[in-house]
């Protein structure tokens, strides 16, 4: 085996070693989610694709996979939206501006943006699913001339859970994106639409099946209903993409935690074509 014969590079870098990054800013989005802008201590840009993720490490506490929620077209910093749900994310929420955190990545495949160039785009995001897909939304808006029509649908459970409110306002004001959002459970102040995200499809005009690429990211239940809606519009299965979540420990195809049948989500994913997923029995359950 060639690698076995190879001489070890002296003190070769470990696959598992994070590099330091500085917290440039912290913004509270909701009771549970903060968004962190980070900059690698090396000064290099992260060099990611929309849809990729990093392993975020707090040394002494642990690591967890987090999607990069900003576009590589904005390279000075990169952003991560972190929901506080357990041990590591709890500690991440204690970070302040100027603190240092460990980062490994970018990891995973990300969206193949070249395949999306020149096409009409429909993005449907539900809940925290907006985070991974925001990198792609920013990318499309920054490179707007490369894309055809752009439809964007977003659903959250309640108004209090809406993420990236500044972005939502911005997107609504732009006339080069057909943006609509809804909440499942409105409160008294809510003036917008209510109902599940599929109700927003009435705002999407006729789609050209061969010319439209669709990205769906959200909880599994939402995924099924949205796929149905999209297939009813005769979109090709190979043109529907989604991003999967799994338990992850290494992020580099070794530890086995992220397997969905024979697929390693950290390597071959997290972005998959719907056509591939259908054949993969453990993917959507």
């Amino acid at each position, binding site marked *: *085996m060639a690698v076995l014969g190879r001489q070890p590079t002296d*003190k070769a870098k470990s696959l598992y070693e994070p590099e330091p990054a500085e917290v440039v800013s912290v913004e509270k989005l909701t009771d549970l989610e903060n968004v962190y802008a980070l900059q690698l201590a090396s000064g290099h840009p992260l060099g990611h694709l929309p849809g990729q993720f990093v392993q975020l490490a707090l040394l002494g506490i*642990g690591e967890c996979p987090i999607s990069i929620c900003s576009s590589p077209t904005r390279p000075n910093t990169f952003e991560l939206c972190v929901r506080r749900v357990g041990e590591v994310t709890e500690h991440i929420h204690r970070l302040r501006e100027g603190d240092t955190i460990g980062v490994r990545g970018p990891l995973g495949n990300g969206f193949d943006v070249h395949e999306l160039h020149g096409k009409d785009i429909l993005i449907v995001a539900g809940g925290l699913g907006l985070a991974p897909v925001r990198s792609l939304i920013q990318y499309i808006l920054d490179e707007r001339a490369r894309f055809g029509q752009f439809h964007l649908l977003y659903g959250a459970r309640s108004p209090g859970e809406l993420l990236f409110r500044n972005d939502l306002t911005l997107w609504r004001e732009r006339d080069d994106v057909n943006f609509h959002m809804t909440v499942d459970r409105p409160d008294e102040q809510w003036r917008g639409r209510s109902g599940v995200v599929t109700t927003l499809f009435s705002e999407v005009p006729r789609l050209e099946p061969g010319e439209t690429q669709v990205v769906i990211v959200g909880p599994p239940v939402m995924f099924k209903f949205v796929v149905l809606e999209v297939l009813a519009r005769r979109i090709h299965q190979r043109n529907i993409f989604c991003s999967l979540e799994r338990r992850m420990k290494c992020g580099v*195809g070794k*530890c086995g935690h992220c397997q969905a049948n024979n697929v390693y989500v950290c390597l071959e994913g997290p972005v998959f074509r719907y056509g591939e997923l259908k054949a993969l029995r453990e993917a959507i359950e």
Partner: protein
Amino acid sequence: MLDRVVSQSQLLALVDELALSRRIVGPVRRSDRHFYGPVDRADKLDLDFKYCVYSPKAALFPADQTLFEFQTGPDGFQTSPVYDESPLALVGVHPCDINAIRLLDRVFSNTNIDEHYLSRRRQTFIVGIDCPTPCTSGVFCRDMKANEAREGADIMCSPLPPNGVSDDVRYGVVFGTDAGREFVLYSHAGDPPTVDDERASERYISDKARAFPQSIPYDVDALPELLERSYDSLLWEATARRCYSCGSCNLSCPTCYCFNTYDRLEMTLTSGTRQREWDGCQLRSFAVVAGDHNFRAKAAARLRHRIYRKAKWVKEREGVAGCVGCARCDRACTAKISSVEIYNQLAEEV
């Protein structure tokens, strides 16, 4: 074709020579069982062992291993990777375990190179010992095409039938690598094979072919296809009813390589290590994410996952089989769940 013939005492002398510059890990007897363990002298090894309870995997991929050390301070943190490059010799490794090591070599060197495994592996000299007969009942290494190891060991030793001249066991040696060839030839151990030795070696091979029974009623190359058709079989649920989800099968498997990572913090709270430890897909928590969602909540789904990995998916991904037929999982299981029995039952699914 043999490269050399050595007696057992000459082989032990070779091991002592290896011990001058390497740690030695080989079969040692503890009460009535054998385990791979560290020794400082060859005469502490028992080369007449039948099999070792566990494979020598832990010598290359320790059950708990430091990946890197870190230090934190007001200006951030520093890390430095930890690699073990101390020379090692694994002695008395059977073909099944050599084939398992070939899989680990592949897994840790494909796509992303894992220096923590490879730095040890590069420094490891393997003395293989072939099995003339099944080492114990229940093994199905022949069915898995893993009771021979043409590659993987630096030298491979097959115990030749007695020649009537000496009582000492004689081994026909085949060099697997240049390192193996150089080591044996420079130490002038043993003799070049004679015509009689070659004949004895041929007899060894034909006796061996008869000595291993067939345990699975089809060629294992058909196994992936059989599994493909059995995903929704009731077999998984029926068998998994007995499963305790204890993970003993994973723990005893020479090819299981899944792991967990965790941080160890010193009392000062400013330095520590990132560790990795063996994990097992049969444990309930293996695929659990925050919010307690479990992607493989049922024991049946976990059992199916293990069998598919061993008999289909690993081979499809890595090109090297994921099961070597050593039956350690079958012996380790308190619920008497048997992989070879499952492979047999699959033949009945149409």
